[in-house]
């Protein structure tokens, strides 16, 4: 069936993209720098330690071999060892991956329904007071970098003026579940970054659909408003909305770095920032691939969802 062939092709494309990304990441971190070992250890390193590191990293081996062994390790669940911590990456990062995913999921769970409601409401009350005020606020939120939003939240809720929420997280053992109050600000920061985009796209999509000829036609047939909304409008408004939701989850993949740093949240974002500082190459490579993987996966899902929701595209595949 044409549909499955399309799905297969799309998945293949995603995998190929990820593969190319892995090559680029690996090249940038291990092959391009003229002397990675020296770069990692710094100027003051002794020759002996540099030599030892080179051996450890396998830098004397041919590039292709270095790459394939790294890739193989990645795929079999053995991404290597962190330099800094001198422990296998799995041990070092494992918890953090879980923490970040938790934060991501929490942010998505709140931002998506909130955006859709705001988008739908402003579409209905178009050009009136609520719409105008909201769209200006959204504009401001969309422009602000995440760390600025986070800082303002901290200023507002966590300093002497109004000390309700913790300014930094101190989660440690027990995981984020146990410290939900500490999750509020980081989640809110991410949510405030995503909502403007999703809401704006939802609004535009709903307005476009609302003014379409087929919605007019439904009304002229005497359809009750609820039917007009759910049977005629919503199914056609979904396409762009899926795309933008995927885009935002992907944006979270990047935004999470600064937010985790700001709130000292023990996630992979914070780990990435730290590992960049000390040039902990294996960790950098691994995390870059994880985040890229999230990005590619969500984009792929969005593409597939759009096709399934649009009969015109679906039947073309048959």
């Amino acid at each position, binding site marked *: 069936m044409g549909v499955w062939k399309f799905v297969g092709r799309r998945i293949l494309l995603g995998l190929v993209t990820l593969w190319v990304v892995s090559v680029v990441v690996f090249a940038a971190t291990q092959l391009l720098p003229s002397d990675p070992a020296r770069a990692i250890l710094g100027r003051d390193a002794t020759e002996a330690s540099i030599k030892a590191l080179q051996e450890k990293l396998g830098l004397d081996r041919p590039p292709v071999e270095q790459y394939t062994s790294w890739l193989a390790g990645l795929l079999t669940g053995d991404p290597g060892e962190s330099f800094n911590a001198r422990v296998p990456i799995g041990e070092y990062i494992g918890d953090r991956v879980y923490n970040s995913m938790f934060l991501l999921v929490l942010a998505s769970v709140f931002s998506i329904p909130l955006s859709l409601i705001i988008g739908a409401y402003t579409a209905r009350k178009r050009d009136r007071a609520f719409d105008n005020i909201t769209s200006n606020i959204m504009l401001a939120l969309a422009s602000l970098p995440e760390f600025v939003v986070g800082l303002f939240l901290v200023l507002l809720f966590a300093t002497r003026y109004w000390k309700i929420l913790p300014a930094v997280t101190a989660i440690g053992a027990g995981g984020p579940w146990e410290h939900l109050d500490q999750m509020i600000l980081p989640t809110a920061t991410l949510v405030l970054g995503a909502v403007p985009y999703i809401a704006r796209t939802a609004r535009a999509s709903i307005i476009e659909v609302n003014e379409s*000829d*087929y919605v*007019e*036609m439904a009304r*002229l047939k*005497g359809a009750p408003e609820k039917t007009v909304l759910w*049977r*005629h409008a919503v199914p056609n408004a979904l396409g762009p909305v899926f795309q933008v939701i995927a885009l935002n989850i992907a944006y979270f993949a990047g935004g999470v770095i600064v937010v985790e740093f700001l709130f000292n949240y023990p996630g992979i974002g914070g780990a990435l920032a730290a590992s960049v500082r000390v040039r902990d190459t294996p960790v950098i490579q691994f995390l870059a691939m994880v985040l890229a993987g999230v990005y590619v996966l969500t984009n792929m899902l969005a593409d597939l969802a759009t096709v399934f*929701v649009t*009969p015109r595209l679906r039947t073309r595949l048959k």
Partner: protein
Amino acid sequence: MSRVVSIQGLRIEVAGRDVDIVDEINLEISAGEILGLVGESGSGKTTVGLSLLGHARRGVKLALGEVRINETNMLTLPERDLREARGKMVSYVPQDPSVALNPALRIGKQIIEVLEFHDFGGSSAARQARVREVMEEVRLPSTREFLRRYPHQLSGGQQQRVGLAMAFANRPAVIVLDEPTTGLDVSTQAHVLATIRRLASEHGVAALYVTHDLAVVANLAHRIAVMYAGRVVEEGPTAEVFANPAHPYTRYLMAAAPDMTGDHQMVGLGGRAPAPGRRPIGCFFAERCELASDICRESFPKPVSVGVGRVARCVTPMAIPDRTRAVPVAASSKPRESDTVLRLQGVVVSYTGKQVVHDIEFGLQPGECLALVGESGSGKTTLSRSIGGLHHEWTGVMTLDGQSLSRSSRDRTMKQRLAIQYVFQNPYGSLNPRRTVGASIARPLMIAGADEKTADLKVGEMLEKVSLTADYAARYPDQLSGGERQRAAIARGLAASPRVLICDEVTSALDVLVQAAIVELLAELRGDLGLAMLFVTHNLPLVRSIADRVAVMAEGRIEELGTATEVIETPKQEYTRRLLSDTPQIGRSTA
């Protein structure tokens, strides 16, 4: 016959402003009667049609008057009752079903839901039976497979029939049809019109048929009302109005209508209808009317009776403007075989590997106009684009003045490129919006190597030739109307003194009067400049006014080739005969 629809003193305004879109509209329709509402774009006819459903589009307000259907005033109906009336007492057939049908919903569902909204028959079984019934009435398959299709899986004609099915399903008392045959093939149009005629008479429906096409309504409507700039200027029984129009505007419309018989040359009219907010005190048509006098400009003429059941808003009804007097088309002569300017031999055109045009052969003489007529898909545009060097996938021999033409315009010599010029259909897309009209017209000249001064002079000359003034050169396309843009595009085509001008459906996107003016212009230019012209169109009656010879194309082949008189009056091929009989004409009824 009982009066089903009664519109009294209807005024529709721009929302929020005291500016009228239409005003003083009084119309009546009886059961079983079809009233044709005729007007050009911007006349407000669609807005009047929608008011019958108590509906106004965004930015439009139904301000004053009454719109009664069987004594119910649609304008004052509360929301719930309005919803009940729509689709049941009065239905709407949309102009463009490709966008009026929900792309995400199967057509069976879209038809049955109008029955569900009004609880037709009281049971699901009754509704399904009715769906099958109405599908048969519009001559569409009622199989489960067909009903499960999505709109994009249907042809244009089928989509339009679905629109009809939805409208007739609940057996409404009134139906509003909004130009439902726009964009359809002539033969499909003929079928759809026949269906409408049959259903309307069978069900005794009162129908309002909104259109800009006089010919279509001539054979369908019992009575017609002509609208201009938001007012009804004439009303009466169809046959009488066409035989002897009372309002000058109606006469101009008829003079501009393509006439297959050749009894009258198409005549156009310059200027344009005043937009809402820019309408003068007196008669809106006075600024363009040959017969206008001071009395006309004082106040808008009141409706006067000009016959039984006939009304017109003119101070000199029945008077005939000179330009509308019928001038027969000059007889077309057979060309001399000797000095051909363009010759095609064994030309085969493909589109992404598939052959779409087969074995074309003809010659074009200098000063001759050859019309390429065909429905969509006949290959006429693909062929003409190949001649113009815009489409590269073809084989065969094409020569210009004896020298062979390369496939792509880039491979042709400069002389050849300038010798064949192309004018496109869509006036909105053929001029670069970021360039002044003058710069666009000058482009071919600059390429030919002219210096700026010479080019400027030539541009002014060209503008005058197409009846625009030289100051148009500094304007941008957005500042021009559709007709003016098309003239500018023609000016650009003529700038480099071409040997052949290819006109590709250049009038299809224009209003009736403007269209006729462009055809007039082209005919004049051909005479003046001795230009050879290839005129591509789907509108067969049109070619009588401009073409010497006609080539009828179907499925990539030339079915028939002869002089215009021959092909139209004594067609040899079955295809041509069918095409002719399917084409609606004023004064001739199609079966």
